[in-house]
């Protein structure tokens, strides 16, 4: 049994199929890349998984359980954490309070939540910023705060939505290293990313979509050679050369 499975997922916005009949399985412990050109439906997929949108049809399974239509907060408590592409820091709270709020999903007392939050901040190397207001963080650290917050909910499956976008090269390396450490902790990861350096180095398998439909799935090496992927990214003439 796969840890996570999407089956025949369809989402229409009016007459437009944002996600059209996509299926994939994610095995425990792997980093699963989700790629595709802009507007191909990647973020919509995450929003379907965490119930910001209801799918038009199709099923979502987590640990064998059908979680289609579960409320967002319930999905988090089941063990699926997520980050947002457009970061959503709780601006007028300190970084520590941001993470404590997340930690309360697993523990009930303030003391335990504080301990869990500090532990997570240390793991994600953000502890030196704990007393800063979240809104005053630069973008790189905001992205890191997103991950830290999601990790404080102790997820088994983590959905990362372009966490490397907008980072400078050294921050990028740090982000890759962090994602690998999260994987080593036993957390399964689905990652959306445009930066090929990130997606190609860390993914075990990659699923490519375009116009809401699956165009290829395989290892990073297979993807680099796939005509369908090259065509989607670079245009038809490159695919056949």
């Amino acid at each position, binding site marked *: 049994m796969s840890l996570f499975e999407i089956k025949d997922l369809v989402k229409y916005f009016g007459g437009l199929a944002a996600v059209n009949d996509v299926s994939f399985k994610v095995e425990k412990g792997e980093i699963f890349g989700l790629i595709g050109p802009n507007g191909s439906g990647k973020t919509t997929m995450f929003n379907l998984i965490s119930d910001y949108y209801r799918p038009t049809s199709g099923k979502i399974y987590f640990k064998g359980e059908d979680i289609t239509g579960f409320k967002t907060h319930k999905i988090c408590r089941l063990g699926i954490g997520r980050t947002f592409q457009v970061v959503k820091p709780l601006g007028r709270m300190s970084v520590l309070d941001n993470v404590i709020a997340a930690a309360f*999903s697993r523990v009930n007392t303030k003391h335990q939540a504080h301990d869990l939050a500090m532990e997570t901040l240390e793991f994600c190397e953000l502890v030196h910023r704990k007393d800063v207001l979240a809104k005053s963080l630069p973008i790189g650290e905001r992205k890191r705060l997103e991950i830290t917050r999601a990790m404080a909910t102790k997820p088994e499956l983590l959905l990362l939505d372009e966490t490397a976008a907008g980072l400078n090269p050294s921050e990028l390396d740090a982000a890759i290293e962090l994602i690998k450490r999260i994987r080593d902790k036993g957390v399964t990861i689905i990652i959306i990313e445009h930066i090929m350096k990130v997606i190609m180095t860390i993914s075990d398998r990659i699923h490519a979509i375009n116009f809401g439909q699956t165009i290829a799935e395989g290892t990073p090496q297979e993807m680099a050679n796939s005509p369908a992927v090259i065509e989607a990214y670079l245009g038809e003439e490159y695919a056949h050369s």
Partner: protein
Amino acid sequence: MRKYSPILLLFILVLFPIVVRDHYHQHLMILVLMWVVIGSGWNVIAGYTGQVSFGDAAFFGTGAYTAGLFVTKLGLSAWWGMLFGGIAAMAIAFPFGWICFRLRGAYFALATLALNEVMRHIATVWESLTDGMVGILVMQTFVSKVPYYYIALGLAVISIIGVQIIMGSKWGYYFVSIREDQDAAESLGINTHYYKMLSLNVAAFLTGMAGALFMNYMGFIDPEVVFSLHDISIMAILVGIVGGVGTLYGPVVGAFVMVAVHEFFRTGFFGFFKGIAALTGSDMINVFAKYVMQAHVLGFGILVVLVILLLPNGIVGDWNLIVKKIFPVKTREVTG
């Protein structure tokens, strides 16, 4: 200093009716303390949870009428209303929140405005229960104002401590998370609908208790008084905004300021215009004074504009800014 100022303030408030014996100032202080309770309630739902309520009078009036009905319908003491008024207000808040927390931001605020008006109409029209516009008259328990003062003080202290405990707990973190970003809050496993309901019910309970106190203290209520949009609902917002939205002691400072400003206008700048009119014998000034005294709502409006422009976080929220403006040199010495 900062740590001990609440205790110092409490000490002064406990001594107040012993030192100041005249009824007028005791009356004003009872109103201030009542507004501390209402303001704290408003602060929980609007200040901390970010769901702005324009309908606090719905809960206030429900509390007041519950206390009144304990006398007229059940023949019991109106003091039962102190507990059951809060519970009755929660009974209104619960279905309202259940339905209306699907709305966000300004749309929720509009729904609370509607709740305010709906409750006022119910109290006006349902004459067999509420006696409609005739209102409810009950015998006051005490002749002196001092017992009411201490009851109001107790209620204010309970609400401040209650809010402090709530805001230091899981609930508090969840409330503020919802204010800051509801979508992010959901993704962190927060059942935002449930916690917004909790927050509204806390606010309704406090406001309902204040309403019951009002019934006991004033001895008379009618729908226009306790379900008043501008005298209760808007006043609650002003207490919150002037004092400082989302600060524990904001409602305390806000209540002092707003009751003072209200009284300042109501008495025609503490009789200033009456004095001038008497001195000059001019009818013009008398007429002018009458309009000024009725223009307290306009005065509130100007005050709010000034507060939002100069102190966007309220008096408590921008306290450091105020201190720095008034004593620029002194603070530098302290910090340096």
